[in-house]
């Protein structure tokens, strides 16, 4: 594909990720950490985010399925997940984490379960979009060096 068109597509997709509220300012800060000394920083950090998130989601699921539910532990796990989503600028995911924590502090198990489905859904959507976006970025970079 023509290099300029690729770059334009990358810029458009990036704009929509921000305009539609999937990503926020912290993601821009992370992009600025990528340079020739750290050429793959964004991909590395995003991959670490996925690994981290998978672990935390598993911990939350386990805590939600325990009887009785330990709401303190549940809140701790979600607090960590919220911290990492906000650190990558995952705006919608972070917002759903806040909703979950409200149910958690009210010790509302059903509310927690429902909002956790929302958290997982937003995370899955973001992950898909990020994977597509970063693949396009890589393609554009390859076309620049060609």
């Amino acid at each position, binding site marked *: 594909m023509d290099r300029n068109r690729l770059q334009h597509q990358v810029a458009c997709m990036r704009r929509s990720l921000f305009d539609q509220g999937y990503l926020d*300012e912290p993601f821009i*800060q992370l992009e600025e950490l990528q340079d020739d000394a*750290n050429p793959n920083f964004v991909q590395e*950090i995003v991959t670490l985010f996925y690994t981290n998130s998978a672990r935390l989601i598993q911990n939350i699921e386990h805590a939600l399925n325990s009887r009785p539910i330990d709401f303190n532990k549940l809140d701790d796990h979600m607090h960590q997940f919220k911290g990492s989503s906000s650190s990558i600028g995952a705006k919608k995911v972070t917002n759903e984490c806040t909703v979950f924590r409200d149910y958690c502090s009210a010790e509302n198990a059903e509310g927690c379960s429902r909002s956790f489905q929302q958290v997982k859904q937003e995370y899955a959507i973001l992950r898909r979009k990020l994977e597509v976006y970063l693949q396009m970025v890589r393609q554009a970079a390859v076309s620049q060096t060609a």
Partner: protein
Amino acid sequence: MAPAFPSGDDWTNFGIGGRPNYKRFSFRDIVLRNRLTALVVDGVNFCRMVEEGFLRACGVETQGVDNGDAAVELIASGAKFDLIVIDMYLPILDGLETTRRIRAMGTRCKMVGVSASFSERDGQAFLAAGVDALSEKPLSPEILVPILRELDGQYSSI
């Protein structure tokens, strides 16, 4: 060659969600005149990598540990830092107790307490334990850069 993301200039064409364009505060805005060192204490390795990345981008020599015990041991062994960034929730020894112990050892450096979110009570407790400032994650340049400038200035005025 590193993949190039749309640059800051591109935001003049693609403003975020129609917001008016403004000069963004970046971690690369600061130029330190002195050698500064920092310790990041965060049990979530992804968050620690982000925090260390931001500090290094500012030109700060940065180390990271993933629990409170390791932080206390490091300082007890004589390591000195100009800045400590510490998460409230830490495995093994929590952020509050870690801060108290670091202060009890006579450490007077700047400490910034971080957390995904702070309740009024948590924030007050963290300050009472000995941190100088609080920041919700992620560490923003608006909070970090003025602190680094202040620390850099302290060296310059000696």
